[in-house]
């Protein structure tokens, strides 16, 4: 495969905040690549550097073997679908799509032909004369894609293009985007914070946080073989435990020694262990590797999500069988359900299900005793 864009040692900061720290990334021809990460991880900045809207502090952007660091956006063979589409409100659908052709002084007949073709590709035939402000979100999205594709760019940059759409429409658009990418053969660089979206559409996923790339790989690799606690937590649900590698294929965590499929660690090396909630089997207490008490149960339709307290650590387990709160259960974990990772700076930050979000952790739980005390104090004295 041919490299089409090479990002080399790119660093970028806004003021004192380093947004991208020495990033290296190769993007190949005809690839659907997704930059995935939480907000503020630098993914949009990286996209804007490729588009030419930001200049890196240091490092190079190479486009088809040519350094394009100083090249302004209008001279790059790259187009962008913006986050809230950025359609020109004063122009109708046709004129929005024709914008770049008019800028290039393409003959009128050819403009007509190409715009009509492009509108057909995005299923917007008959919308030529409509005002873009009168379109629905999904239709605006299609116009934005048509407008960006009409120039036949080598690379299409998409900055969270689906974030404004509702859930069902988003799923449809995911399929459609993938189809358009296959039909046109153009490289898509897609930015999102939605891991499900990233997994379902991409050939390659690039997981980023805090200005660093954490892992590059296929969706399956990323999910099954996360490289550190951050990736494991960000992609899907994970129980992440402190463990110790005893020898190859043998890891100890939660007070029990398990068989596993991982090797190549030092003897007695401290590691992070990932167990996905859907990979844990619930068995009668005496038959389990581990024993715990159910602390909460949430019904989610397809399955139950239950939180189990095992020696103070809250595990999340997805099961189709109902278990009641306060029930004592056993957990059975197969070797292929266990994934062992090297310790990283993210170790200990994720993987315990006492709360789902960081925010809730900061707020803390409502202290019922304190509440009662407060109430008692505020009771008027009747004596």
């Amino acid at each position, binding site marked *: 495969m041919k490299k089409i864009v090479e990002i080399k040692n790119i660093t970028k900061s806004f003021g004192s905040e380093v947004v991208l720290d020495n990033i290296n990334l190769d993007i190949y021809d005809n690839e659907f690549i997704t930059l995935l990460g939480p907000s503020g991880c630098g993914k949009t900045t990286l996209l804007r550097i490729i588009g030419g809207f930001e200049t890196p502090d240091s490092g190079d952007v190479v486009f088809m073997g040519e350094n394009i660091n100083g090249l*302004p956006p209008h001279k790059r063979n790259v187009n962008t679908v913006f986050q809230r589409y*950025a359609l*020109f409100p004063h122009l109708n659908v046709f004129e929005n799509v024709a914008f770049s052709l008019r800028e290039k002084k393409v003959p009128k007949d050819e403009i007509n032909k190409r715009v009509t073709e492009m509108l057909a590709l995005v299923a917007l035939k008959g919308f030529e004369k409509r005002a873009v402000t009168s379109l629905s979100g999904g239709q605006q999205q299609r116009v934005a894609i048509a407008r960006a594709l009409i120039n036949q760019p080598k690379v299409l940059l998409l900055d969270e293009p689906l974030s404004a759409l509702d859930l069902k429409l988003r799923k449809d658009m995911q399929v459609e985007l993938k189809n358009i990418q296959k039909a046109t053969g153009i490289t898509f660089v897609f930015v999102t914070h939605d891991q499900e979206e990233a997994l379902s559409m991409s050939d390659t996923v690039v997981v980023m946080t805090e200005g660093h790339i954490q892992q590059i790989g296929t969706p399956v690799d990323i999910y099954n073989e996360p490289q550190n606690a951050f990736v494991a937590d960000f992609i899907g649900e994970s129980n992440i435990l402190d463990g110790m590698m005893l020898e190859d294929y043998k890891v100890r965590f939660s007070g029990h020694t398990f068989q596993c499929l991982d090797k190549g660690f030092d003897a007695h090396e401290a590691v992070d262990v990932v167990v996905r909630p859907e990979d844990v089997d619930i068995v009668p207490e005496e038959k389990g590797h581990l024993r715990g008490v159910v602390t909460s149960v949430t019904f989610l339709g397809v399955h139950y999500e239950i939180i189990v307290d095992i020696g103070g650590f809250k595990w999340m387990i997805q099961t189709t069988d109902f278990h009641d709160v306060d029930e004592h259960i056993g957990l059975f974990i197969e070797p292929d359900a266990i994934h062992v990772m090297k310790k990283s700076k993210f170790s200990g930050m994720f993987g315990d299900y006492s709360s789902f979000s960081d925010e809730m952790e900061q707020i803390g739980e409502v202290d019922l005793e304190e509440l009662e005390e407060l109430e008692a104090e505020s009771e008027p004295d009747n004596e």
Partner: protein
Amino acid sequence: MKRASKIYTALIMVFLFAPMVILLVFSFNEAKSLSVFSGFSLKWYRELFRDEETLKAVVNTLVLAVLAALISTVMGTAAAVGMNKLRNKVLRTAMDSVTNIPMINPDIITGISLMLMFVFVGRLFGAATSLNFATMLLAHITFCLPYVILQVLPKLQQMDKALPEAAMDLGCTPLRAFFKAELPEIMPGVITGMIMAFTLSLDDFVISYFTSGNGFQTLPIRIYNMTKKTVTPKMYALATIIFFVILTLLLISNLYDEETVQKRREARANKKNAKEART
């Protein structure tokens, strides 16, 4: 509206319009009297149109207002674009505060301050009187600028920042991107700013009074000079004409507004229909 509200509003309107109506009625009075209407006549209008000084003042005012509006609109729009992009907080605050000065300062101080500078600089170059059309134009541009900036800035802030980027992405140079993507978006603000600058310049008396030379009269200064001495109903005729010009302009702009509101409503209806059609 409730009855009490209606009565209250009506009373205020009487207060606002009674003086206008009186001017209007007495502009057609045959006699010079201010209190007794002695018969219909167009005599004062005829006299007004024979008053060359006033006619010249009208022309002067229009020339001045057009120039002041155009220059302040171009410079003010550019300034707003630059200020909107300014990331340096200290510089931005400084620009904002300086822009606010002519709006907060009483006109008399703005007028006096400009006059003092013009006189001082004029004296440096040995001119006896340095106040003329040019100084007045400079003054008018100065007090119009903040109003243009204040009309354009919010439009820039409301605009999707990605629009000019999208234009550049599609092959425009930064300058063309401004004219093709940004300017159409902020145009309502630019137009309102220009209209405001134009009317403020037309209407200004105080600053003009201090910065005009003896040879150059605008309409407000002409009115001031006319009302300084004896009263003449010619003034009423002039006021009546101004009143109707303003009334027409306001009605036109209102109709225009309603048209745009109507268009927006239609667009909304379209959108709704489209939604219903899909479901």
